């Protein structure tokens, strides 16, 4: 069976539209990262410090009443309902209470204000600001090292132009994940960074598949124009690119749909990353190399 037979799509011809779309995505991604660095993004408590509780109630609990009860007792909190089974996610930022006392105080409020509705604390995390700062720094270093590591590897495997284009395409995918999380106001936490780094490693594969073929055809075929060879190569590996993405996407989707609340956003980031990664390896990476090659030729001529 084949989903895609022989195709003759002019991928390179669509580069203006694609570059525009990608520029917007990248711009949004940069805005998101600026927000993260300046601390005004929706950062998870692992980066900022603070307290998060996941509570399971016996009966349904009104989220507004819960919020009111907490703020009445001097605990400003961000509440979120979890779809399956009367659960609440309660996030508390900085308070006057000492670290280690916040979770207890929250429990106390619910015990007092909702006497009829018994609850259990499924998980709680209290993180001091110093820990958050350290983790933020460590994460930044981790991201930088991975990016540098990947670039060094590509530079070793490919020549300069391909290497830079692949690195840009990879970076583009990571930016896209941040952009979408920023647009949807989803929390940026350590798991998201993990997902983004995983995607960085993964999306490169797709790009490499395309590049490998372009290089192979460049050696075989000296007559045709670059545009023809690039288009031809991309068409040749289309089904590979789509199917490798599809199988991984199937796995990521089942994580997204059935993996549960804790890794829901993580799986979402993977799904987004795989989709964008496939797009970028076809529509961003190769056209970039081509544009660069053409510029170089024009300058030489």
């Amino acid at each position, binding site marked *: 069976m084949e989903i895609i037979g022989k195709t003759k799509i002019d991928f390179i011809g669509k580069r203006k539209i694609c570059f525009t779309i990608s520029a917007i995505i990248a711009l949004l991604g940069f805005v998101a990262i600026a927000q993260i660095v300046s601390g005004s993004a929706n950062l998870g408590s692992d980066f900022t410090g603070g307290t998060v509780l996941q509570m399971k109630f016996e009966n349904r609990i009104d989220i507004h009443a819960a919020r009111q009860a907490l703020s009445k007792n001097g605990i400003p909190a961000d509440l979120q309902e979890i779809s399956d089974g009367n659960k609440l996610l309660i996030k508390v930022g900085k308070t006057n209470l000492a670290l280690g006392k916040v979770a207890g105080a929250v429990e106390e409020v619910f015990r007092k204000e909702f006497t009829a509705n018994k609850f259990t604390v499924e*998980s709680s995390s209290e993180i001091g600001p*110093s820990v958050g700062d350290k983790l933020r720094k460590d994460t930044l270093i*981790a991201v930088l090292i991975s990016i540098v590591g990947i670039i060094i590897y590509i530079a070793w495997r490919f020549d300069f132009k391909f290497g830079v284009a692949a690195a840009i395409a990879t970076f583009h995918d990571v930016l896209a994940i941040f952009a979408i999380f920023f647009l949807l106001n989803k929390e940026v936490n350590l798991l998201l960074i993990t997902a983004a780094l995983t995607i960085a490693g*993964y999306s490169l*594969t797709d790009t*490499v598949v395309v590049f*490998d073929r372009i290089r192979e055809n460049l050696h075989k075929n000296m007559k045709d124009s670059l545009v023809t060879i690039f288009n031809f190569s991309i068409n040749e590996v289309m089904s590979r690119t789509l199917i490798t993405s599809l199988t991984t996407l199937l796995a990521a989707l*089942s*994580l997204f749909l059935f*993996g549960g609340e804790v890794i829901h956003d993580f799986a979402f980031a993977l799904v987004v990353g795989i989709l964008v990664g496939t797009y970028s390896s076809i529509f961003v990476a190769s056209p970039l190399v081509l544009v660069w090659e053409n510029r170089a030729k024009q300058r030489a001529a």
Partner: protein
Amino acid sequence: MPKGLTWRISLILIFLILSVVYLTPTLMPKLPSWWEGAIFPKDKIHLGLDLQGGIHLVLEVETQKAVEGQLDIIATDLEDTLNGKNIRFKNVSRLGGDRIAVTLFDKGTAETVQKLLKDKYSRFELQAPFEEGGYQNLQLRMAEAEIKSVKDKSVQQALETIRNRIDQFGVSEPVIQREGISNIVVQLPGVKDPKRAIELIGKTARLEFKLVDEGVDPTTATPGSLPEGDELQMEKRTDPDTGAVSEIPYVLKKKTMITGDLLTDAQVRIDSQFNQPYVAIEFNSVGAKLFDQVTAANVGKRFAIVLDNNVYSAPVIRERISGGSAQISGSFTEKEASDLAIVLRAGALPAPVKIIQNLTVGPSLGQDSIHKGLIAGLVGVLLVIIFMAIYYKLSGMVANTGMVLNLVYLMGALAALGATLTLPGIAAIVLLIGMSVDANVLIFERIREELRLGKTPKAALDAGYDKAFLTIMDSHVTTLITAAVLFQFGTGPVKGFAVSLSLGVIINLFTALIGTKVVFDYFLGRGRAKKISI
């Protein structure tokens, strides 16, 4: 048979058997007795705290307090020495965080003391003496290196003490590790009462016996109006019925008569008269002698038992106590008494600790996560199997077999290496289901192309594997780079992700390049199959 086929098949089978052997303890609810007796592995796959529930604490030891404590002890010791030698002095006290100041009345004694300090406290730097307001001032300064070593030792000692307490509390497989300069990481899997455990670990447990100053009325005393050498301390009493907390003030002599260091044992006992729990303590010979002297000299006065600046009780000394045993009673429950006994036996922390991170996961959430992870994995496996079977027919099934083999190997490796499986780790495994057939997809697509060019199945197969090899290496190496970085920098769950991912990627390289190829080689080898179902 094509050359090399036998050893490749053997290798695959050996790995399979090893994986199954290592996975048996995880999969079997109860191991048969012959298994237990033999050399077979008995450990289940380690589950992270996020999957089995428990607490992850990061404690910061307030090491500066340990230095100050040391200086205080030396100041008291110096005071005693000077008194013992009948040297008149105005004041001996700790100054800031690194020195002890001695104030003397005249130059003559200053010289004597200077000599004494030089001999006795050679670890310290003796500052040049100076005169101020008609007094002679001497200062001993703790050297930087010494301060560092005191801080370092205090963290080490805190670690030992906490380990001791946890051992006595009874937690299976706790992790207690030093992290960085002054942090201690404590992981307690499966703890049922996290609050109690945290309290037990975090308590400084500095036990002091101090005399009550009977000459001052504690109800009217304020910190400002106290006579020199006295201090105000509170006893917190909790009403067992209402839970209301009341505070009773005491005016105590500042000087600590006996400390908890001199204890040899502490046990919970039940008072037969009031059915109240109390903690019976035993002193060592030094402590017993001190206790004997103090009680003999202070009959009729009250002797306060102070733990971490909280008065537990202040019983009246009715008679001289010379046996070296005493008891601490107060308004506590049996659990609290038992925890108090544990911290007294394990000893005090050399400095207070601050909780800077506390992650608690209840057992139900962990169970739920495992359950959902399994479902997601199963759905993922099924989707991929169906897709591959339809799209690549028999070859797809070969890839599917490779994928399942990959999963078994991965789980076996996790068990064999004693790696920890976390929820993100499960996510990595699910992701690997998709990624592990990727390599085969690359190969199959290449084979199809070669077939279209008119090559024979065997030639197409070899070309497919050869030409896809570099691409497959590329994808695996880049994933390994990120996994390695995540492993180095990640904590807990993320580390679990990195472990699963990197192991999976390495194993996948084996199953994709050797595992599935064996099947094709076998069938195409002797012309058993004329066509390739792809």
